[in-house]
C-alpha cells in the first residue's frame, strides 16, 4: 500500500527547492557584475530579471518551512535532486532565451539542461558573438551543476542508510560525517584546482595566445569551469581547436582528469592513502588504455594521422575528453563525423563507460564496470574450482569491501538501465532517418553527460528528438534512482492512502 505524503512533506521539498533557486539568484550576481563592467546593459537587465524572479520564488518557498525537528530522509533528498535538475534550468534559461541566440524557447532550456547536467551539447546560434556575460553564465551553470551533483552523490549515492540501488556505488561507509564537511571538502578541492587552473590558463592566454589580460582571464575562467566540471561548453564555437595550442590542450587535459576523478580519490590522495589497488583506478586505467589503442588504430587506418605526434595529440585528447565525459574537441564536427570504424567505436565506448563515481563525469562509471568484471571473473572461477573452494569476492575501494549479491544486482541493474537509455535515444533518432552510427553516438553523448557531437544536435534538430535528449541528460545525470524516487513520490501523492 502506498502512503500518501503529508502536507509537511510537500512543504519541506518546496522549501529545499526554494533554497536551491536562491543559490541560482546568488550565482547570477557574477555575470551581472561582468555585464555591468563590460557595458552589456541589455544582458545586465536580463540578469536583474533572473535575480528578481528567483529571489521572489526563494523567499516565497522559505515561508514553507517545515515543522522543526523533522528528519530529512533519503527519498526526500532524491526527490529534491530530481526536481532541482528539472526546475533550475527553467529559471537559468531566462538570460539565455532573452539573449536572442536561440530559435525556440526549448533550445535555451536544452542548453541550460546541458549546462546543469555538465553535458556540453549546445544548440545556440552564433556563439562567437554572444555577450560575454551570457557566455559566462552558461559556464557557471556547468560549475553549479557539477558541484551540485558531486554533493548529491556524496550525500545520497554514497549513503548507507537505504539498502538501495545506490549500493552500486559500492560504498559501505560515509567518507564524511555530515553535509557541512562534505560541502567543505568539495569546496576545498574545487578552490585549489580553480586557483591553479585559472592562473595557469590565464598565463597561457597572455603569453602563448597573445590575449589581453581581461580576455585571457575570461577564457581561463570559462574553460576551467567547463573542464573541471567535465562540462564541455566553450566560449568559442570551435571548442578547444580555437586555441590551437598543445600546451593549452595539456592544461585542459589535467583539469579534465581532475574532474573525472571521484572525490573519494581526491580525498585519498590528499590524505596520502594508497590508491594503486583501488578498483576504480585500475578499471579506468584498463578501459582508458583499451579505448585509446582502439581509437589510435582507427585513426591510423582511416589515414587521419600519419605520424606519432598528431596521433598522440588528437587521439589522446579526444579519448580523454570522451572518457572523462567532458566533450571538448580539437577537431571539427564534420571531421569527427567522418571518423568511422575503430576510431568511432573507441570514442563511443569511452563515452559510454564514463568516469569515476562521485565525480562530475557521467556514464556507467568505472566502479560499476570494475565490479561487473570482477563478478564475471568470480563466477567463472567458482565454476572451474573444485567444490568447496572459497572465492574471496572482495574489492578494494578505500579499504577492502565485500561484493554482496545485493551490490552486484544493483551494479548490473544500473548498468543495463544505462544501455537501455543509450538505445532509446538512438531508436528515436533512427526513426527520424538518421544512420545508426551517428544516432547511437549522439544518444550516448547526451545520456552519459559528454557533449561530443557528430552533427545531429543542431538548432534545426527535430523537436521530439530534442525533448528525448533533454530527458536523457536528466535521467542519465541522476542515475535513474532519483527519477524513480520522484515518480514514486508523485504516484503516492495521487494514489496513496
Amino acid at each position: 500500500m502506498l502512503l500518501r505524503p503529508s502536507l509537511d512533506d510537500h512543504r519541506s521539498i518546496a522549501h529545499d527547492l526554494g533554497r536551491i533557486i536562491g543559490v541560482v539568484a546568488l550565482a547570477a550576481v557574477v555575470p551581472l557584475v561582468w555585464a555591468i563592467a563590460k557595458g552589456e546593459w541589455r544582458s545586465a537587465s536580463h540578469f536583474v530579471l533572473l535575480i528578481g524572479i528567483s529571489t521572489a520564488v526563494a523567499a516565497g518557498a522559505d515561508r514553507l518551512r517545515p515543522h522543526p525537528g523533522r528528519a530529512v530522509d533519503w527519498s526526500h533528498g532524491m526527490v529534491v535532486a530530481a526536481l532541482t535538475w528539472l526546475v533550475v534550468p527553467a529559471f537559468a534559461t531566462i538570460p539565455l532565451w532573452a539573449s536572442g541566440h536561440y530559435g525556440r524557447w526549448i533550445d535555451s532550456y536544452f542548453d541550460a539542461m546541458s549546462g546543469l547536467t555538465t553535458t556540453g551539447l549546445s544548440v545556440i546560434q552564433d556563439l562567437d558573438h554572444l555577450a560575454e556575460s551570457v557566455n559566462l553564465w552558461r559556464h557557471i551553470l556547468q560549475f553549479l551543476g557539477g558541484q551540485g551533483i558531486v554533493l548529491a552523490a556524496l550525500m545520497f549515492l554514497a549513503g548507507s542508510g537505504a539498502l538501495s540501488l545506490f549500493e552500486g556505488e559500492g560504498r559501505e561507509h560515509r567518507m564524511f560525517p555530515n553535509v557541512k564537511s562534505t560541502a567543505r571538502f568539495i569546496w576545498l578541492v574545487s578552490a585549489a584546482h580553480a586557483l591553479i587552473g585559472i592562473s595557469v590558463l590565464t598565463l597561457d592566454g597572455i603569453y602563448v595566445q597573445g590575449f589581453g589580460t581581461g580576455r585571457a582571464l575570461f577564457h581561463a575562467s570559462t574553460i576551467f569551469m567547463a573542464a573541471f566540471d567535465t562540462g564541455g561548453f566553450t566560449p568559442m564555437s570551435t571548442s578547444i581547436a580555437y586555441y590551437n595550442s598543445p600546451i593549452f590542450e595539456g592544461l585542459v587535459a589535467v583539469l579534465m582528469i581532475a574532474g573525472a576523478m571521484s572525490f573519494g580519490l581526491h580525498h585519498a590522495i590528499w590524505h596520502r592513502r594508497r590508491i594503486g589497488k583501488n578498483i576504480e583506478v585500475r578499471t579506468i586505467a584498463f578501459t582508458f588504455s583499451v579505448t585509446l589503442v582502439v581509437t589510435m588504430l582507427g585513426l591510423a587506418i582511416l589515414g587521419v594521422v600519419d605520424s606519432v605526434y598528431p596521433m598522440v595529440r588528437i587521439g589522446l585528447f579526444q579519448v580523454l575528453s570522451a572518457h572523462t565525459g567532458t566533450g571538448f574537441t580539437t577537431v571539427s564536427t564534420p571531421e569527427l563525423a567522418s571518423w568511422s570504424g575503430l576510431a568511432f567505436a573507441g570514442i563511443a565506448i569511452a563515452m559510454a563507460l564514463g568516469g569515476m563515481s562521485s565525480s562530475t563525469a557521467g556514464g556507467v562509471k568505472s566502479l560499476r564496470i570494475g565490479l561487473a568484471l570482477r563478478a564475471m571473473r568470480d563466477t567463472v572461477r567458482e565454476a572451474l574450482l573444485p567444490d568447496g573452494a572459497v572465492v574471496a569476492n572482495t574489492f578494494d575501494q578505500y579499504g577492502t569491501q565485500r561484493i554482496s549479491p545485493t551490490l552486484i544486482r544493483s551494479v548490473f541493474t544500473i548498468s543495463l538501465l544505462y544501455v537501455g537509455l543509450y538505445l532509446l535515444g538512438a531508436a528515436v533518432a533512427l526513426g527520424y532517418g538518421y544512420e545508426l552510427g551517428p544516432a547511437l553516438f549522439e544518444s550516448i553523448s547526451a545520456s552519459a553527460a559528454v557533449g561530443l557531437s557528430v552533427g545531429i544536435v543542431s538548432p534545426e534538430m527535430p523537436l521530439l528528438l530534442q525533448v528525448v535528449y533533454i530527458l536523457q541528460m536528466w535521467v542519465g545525470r541522476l542515475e535513474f534512482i532519483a527519477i524513480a524516487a520522484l515518480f514514486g513520490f508523485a504516484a503516492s501523492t495521487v494514489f496513496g492512502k
Partner: protein
Amino acid sequence: MRTHLREIRQGLRGVGLEVLALAGLALVATLVAWLVLAAV
C-alpha cells in the same frame, strides 16, 4: 590557519600528481602511437 595551510599544501600535491598522471598517459600514448603506426 595552520589547518588551512596544510590543506592547501595537500591540494597542491594532489594537482602535482594529476600533472604526473597526464605525463604518464602521454608517454603511454606515444608508445602506443608508435607501435600502431609501425603495425599499420
